[in-house]
């Protein structure tokens, strides 16, 4: 009996996981609704949930409107760098994926002209830029770090991306995924970071490549990027699908 149950569970695990993600937000919000709205007859978590999701989509639009493509995030001197720079992910640091840089091939797909994959050596041949900027986590803490790599605009132009598409999506080796708006993708400080400090990214900071977006919160800076795609269909994200605001601009 137990054995049968296990088999059934494993068959439905992906669907269960999806359902679970949706439930996490809903449960949280209905708890809030109960705390807040007892006596108001509005105890239906789904209704409150819908209002909150709608407000989050509204906040996406407001932030896209507020976003100035030419406004640079403040930069700092090397002396301001936070040492050690904190590790943060949805798993402990020991579970950060170990990737062999020699086997690495970045996949490119969607609305792009050239879908060839990219080795690390090829990425290193592109123009490189460095920045010392503040990484702000949605949890409230922040830390200053130094990242270097390929300006994302240069990369998107090089692969012949449709620069009028709405989204750029990222799939990562640690099962993380996220997406950003095209305006932010083209911002001069948005880079495909290959280095942290003066050395290649260590595994804990996203080897072999992470997206560095100083105009967005930390969780919009995916690490261990394995694939990039350009699309007009909303790609969502690991945290975004659970309820973090999608745009999350700084």
């Amino acid at each position: 009996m137990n054995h049968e149950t296990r088999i059934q569970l494993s068959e439905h695990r992906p669907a269960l996981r999806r359902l679970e993600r949706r439930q996490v937000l809903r449960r949280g919000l209905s708890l809030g609704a109960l705390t807040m709205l007892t006596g108001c007859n509005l105890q239906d978590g789904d209704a409150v949930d819908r209002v909150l999701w709608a407000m989050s989509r509204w906040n996406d639009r407001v932030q896209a409107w507020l976003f100035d493509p030419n406004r640079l995030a403040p930069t700092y001197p090397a002396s301001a760098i936070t040492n050690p720079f904190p590790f943060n992910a949805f798993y402990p640091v020991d579970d950060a994926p170990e990737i062999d840089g020699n086997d690495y091939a970045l996949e490119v797909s969607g609305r792009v002209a050239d879908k060839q994959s990219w080795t690390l050596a090829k990425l290193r041949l592109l123009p490189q830029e460095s920045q010392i900027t503040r990484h702000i986590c949605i949890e409230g803490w922040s830390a200053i770090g130094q990242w270097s790599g390929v300006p994302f605009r240069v990369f998107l132009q090089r692969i012949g991306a449709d620069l009028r598409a709405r989204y750029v999506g990222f799939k990562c080796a640690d099962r993380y995924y996220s997406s950003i708006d095209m305006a932010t993708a083209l911002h001069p400080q948005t880079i495909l970071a290959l280095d942290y400090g003066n050395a290649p990214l260590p595994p804990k900071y996203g080897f072999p490549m992470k997206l560095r977006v100083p105009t967005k919160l930390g969780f919009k800076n995916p690490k261990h990027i394995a694939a990039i795609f350009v699309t007009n269909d909303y790609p969502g994200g690991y945290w975004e699908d659970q309820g973090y605001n999608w745009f999350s601009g700084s």
Partner: protein
Amino acid sequence: MTSAAATSPSTPAERPPRTIVPVHPALVRVTHWVNVFAMVCMIMSGWMIYNASPLFGFSFPAWATLGGWLGGAIAWHLAAMWLLVGNGAAYVVYGLVSGHFRHNLLPLWPREVLRDARDAARFRLRHHEGEYNSLQRLAYIGVLTLGMLAVASGLALWKPVQLQGLTALFGGYDVARRVHFIVMMGIVGFILIHLALVVLVPRTLLGMIGGRTKLPAAREKLSG
């Protein structure tokens, strides 16, 4: 009030002389209660956001927070902020245009504040419906200022790149976090005193709900 007055309809002549005084204009009452809802949402969800990365050596108990988890709390915080700001703006515009601020919150003289504070310390400060004493004026101007600081420091935290001038004005992102927290504590402190005074003078609650209060004798009414 006598029991006879409460049980049988009496003619005006039999009633003690009383005046029904309009205490708070409708807009002040509506924005007050909308603000109560928005502020409670902001403070409780803010406490849960604080708990994700506590600035100081303590966390807020889960029962006092809103949102269930960080994502839910931020969803509440960034939704309720529109209500807080929209409602606050309506109140401030009304207060400026109608003369409500000028007539009821001003003037505020230090000497009167000291006098009222002395009376209050001796439990001699009397509450006059329809008129704010200087301590009330100080408290309301103070909490309005705190409310505006909460919004400004919140914007500095929400948009430290797009509104980086504002964030710099607060002394940077980390200082803005502390300002946002301290301002919250100031507002919570106001709420506690405010509620304690409503418990001491419960009829003020009726004034904020119905807008009128029955007084044994005529008083100067709040204008605007």
